[in-house]
């Protein structure tokens, strides 16, 4: 068989993997015919993990050693809002690692977030290898378009830890557009409305003559289907507390039952217009009496609960359209991506906003992995038919005096790109120049995400103002930032060290990869 490269949609809740086989993009099911796998990792023992839909069934019974929604935490600092929020609702322990990093503590050890995601990726690799009967190590992995550099780098690290050769990190909506336009001679402006489990992205693309140009992208990495579940959970828990005086949220076991009940209710109400919620023996009252929770949720009630969340997505759409200098009227096709877009309230609201019926016949759970597979396949060949022109979602900045920042590369700038900036020394005999690099839309550093502090040394030593170094900021095709510097006069590259970053060092990655390989995936041959 010819060389293969897989496309992996590494989702917050579910992941999917696809290959191009004989020119046809195909989702690869696991041995039980399941086409999506839960992004859940259950630690069974010191050297065995269970990953996927089987692991998901363990969330309630093995709450402390079952990790889910890791994507919400990957590439974030320990002090971030998202991490604080997760500590309140996740049954597994979230602790602080070195350099403000986040670690997950399970009974037999601590793991970084890239290590957790690496187990999901390894399972996807195993699914592919079982299907084709040969090793496959090359992969394209997708991320939300609005992911920042830290999150992209951490996802790439996860791939390496899993033993994958990561050809490219591709944006999820861009992958979806590629799958939509594959093998068709289109000339269209399309919008991708991608509501996933934990993130929301909108991208606007112009497709024509084999070129897929992203014109703008906007997103919210704190908005997803999970938030819809939360609304149902809150409603159920509040109602139960009113009736019984007991708060189900205080107990992690009850909380998981609620979460599962809420997720199922959301799917059922979307499909049938009404959901019967029945959670028998969810808890005991102080007298030891076993209590059940039964409720009925109709579509109007549900729509009312989530209306503000739906409205928030259109603020993001406004932003994307504005950046692309367009109105909804300019859009030729609307493509829905992500499981939550199956909900009738999303479909009708999107149709109303864009004045256009979303494209039918696209599976919102599979389209991203198909696009990733198409891109993976294209990267194996010299001179493929399609050219993907993507952009950076966030403005790249450097810190200046008193907490302010200065723009280096604007958001929605096509990538790969590099921009240079000259710095001069400010003291006589200065040996080092330090620069803090940020991403975000705020003029102030505190409103942006810190990517790291770069320190340059090894340039000529001279009087203040005499030594000039040229710093180059590069954003590569993965959307990952690289910073380097040269002594302007000698043209010599200076040495660069990165500190204050939440990421893993090369040694960390090697050690993590070794530990990953030493861990057995349950139910799979070693």
């Amino acid at each position, binding site marked *: 068989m010819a060389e293969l490269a897989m496309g992996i949609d590494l989702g917050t809740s579910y992941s999917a993997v696809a290959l191009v086989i004989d020119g046809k993009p195909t989702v690869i099911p696991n041995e039980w015919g399941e086409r999506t796998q839960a992004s859940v990792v259950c630690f069974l023992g010191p050297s065995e993990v269970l990953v996927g839909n089987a692991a998901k069934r363990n969330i309630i019974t093995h709450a402390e050693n079952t990790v889910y929604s890791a994507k919400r935490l990957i590439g974030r600092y320990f002090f971030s809002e998202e991490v604080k929020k997760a500590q309140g609702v996740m049954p597994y322990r979230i602790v602080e690692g070195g350099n403000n990093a986040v670690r997950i503590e399970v009974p037999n050890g601590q793991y970084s977030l890239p290590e957790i995601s690496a187990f999901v990726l390894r399972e996807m690799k195993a699914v592919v290898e079982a299907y084709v009967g040969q090793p496959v190590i090359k992969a394209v992995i997708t991320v939300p378009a609005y992911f920042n550099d830290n999150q992209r780098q951490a996802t790439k690290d996860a791939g390496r830890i899993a033993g994958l050769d990561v050809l490219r990190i591709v944006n999820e909506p861009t992958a979806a557009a590629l799958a939509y336009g594959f093998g068709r001679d289109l000339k269209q402006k399309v919008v991708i409305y991608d509501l996933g489990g934990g993130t929301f992205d909108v991208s606007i693309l112009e497709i024509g003559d084999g070129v897929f140009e992203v014109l703008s992208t906007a997103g919210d990495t704190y908005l997803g289907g999970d938030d819809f579940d939360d609304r149902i959970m809150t409603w159920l828990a509040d109602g139960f507390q009113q009736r019984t005086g007991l708060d189900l949220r205080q107990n992690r076991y009850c909380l998981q039952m609620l979460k599962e009940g809420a997720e199922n209710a959301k799917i059922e109400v979307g499909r049938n217009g009404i959901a019967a919620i029945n959670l028998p023996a969810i808890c005991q009252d102080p007298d030891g009496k076993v209590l059940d929770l039964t409720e009925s949720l109709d579509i109007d009630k549900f729509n009312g609960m989530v209306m503000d969340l739906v409205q928030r997505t259109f603020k993001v759409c406004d932003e994307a359209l504005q950046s692309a200098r367009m109105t909804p009227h300019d859009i030729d096709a609307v493509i829905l991506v992500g499981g939550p877009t199956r909900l009738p309230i999303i479909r009708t609201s999107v149709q109303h906003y864009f004045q256009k019926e979303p494209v039918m016949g696209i599976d919102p759970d599979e389209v991203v992995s198909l696009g990733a597979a198409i891109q993976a396949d294209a990267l194996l060949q010299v*001179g493929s038919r399609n050219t993907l022109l993507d952009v950076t979602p966030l403005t790249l900045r450097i810190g200046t005096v008193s907490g302010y920042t200065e*723009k280096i590369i604007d958001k929605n*700038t096509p990538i790969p790109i590099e921009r240079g*900036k000259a710095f001069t020394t400010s003291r006589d005999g200065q040996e080092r120049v330090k620069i803090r690099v940020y991403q975000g839309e705020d003029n102030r550093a505190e409103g942006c995400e810190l990517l790291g502090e770069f320190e340059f040394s090894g340039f000529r030593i001279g009087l203040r103002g005499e030594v000039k170094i040229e710093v180059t900021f590069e954003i590569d095709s993965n959307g990952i930032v690289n910073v380097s510097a040269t002594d302007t006069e000698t043209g010599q590259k200076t040495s660069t060290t990165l500190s204050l970053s939440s990421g893993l060092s090369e040694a960390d990655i090697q050690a993590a990869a070794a530990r990953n390989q030493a861990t057995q995936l349950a139910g799979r041959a070693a």
Partner: protein
Amino acid sequence: MEIEFANEAETLAQLLDQLDYFQVLKLELNATPPQIKEAFHRESRAYHPDRYNALPDSPLKANVNRIYKRVTEAYVILRDDLSRKKYLEDINGPDRASKLRFTPADEQEAREKRKKAQAEQIGTTVKGRQLYQQALKDLEQEKPEAAMRNLKMAQTFEPANQLFKDKLAELDAAARAAAKTKGHGQT
């Protein structure tokens, strides 16, 4: 064909630092926005690094990477009216050789220039702005003499403001025309 392309890329990569953005995108200086976009797509089809990703590391791959990053840079600057205007001034000026690449500092300068122009539209001093607004009100109420007085006062605060100058000239012309018609009526 492949060797030909490799040679072409080699030559272009070596020349890159001597080319302006119009030359990088193979465009005339008066190219329209659709032409700029078309050029970006055309050069992307030729030089996008994805097309050569499968090749082993080679001079060709390095050249293509270098060229393509300059292509995106050229596109980003030329598609923005403000940056393009300043860039055109720069490359047609005496410092052309050092101005072939438009830096974030140049961008900042262009933005500040626009800000200043916009501020001048409404006046850069509080007094100047107030007097100009008053003059506009006077005109609405058909009191051209009062408007003229206020504009002249505004000018004492901002002698260089082009907007004030233009408006004053306009009023002056109108006043003279009115005087003429009046004169006609009398004779």
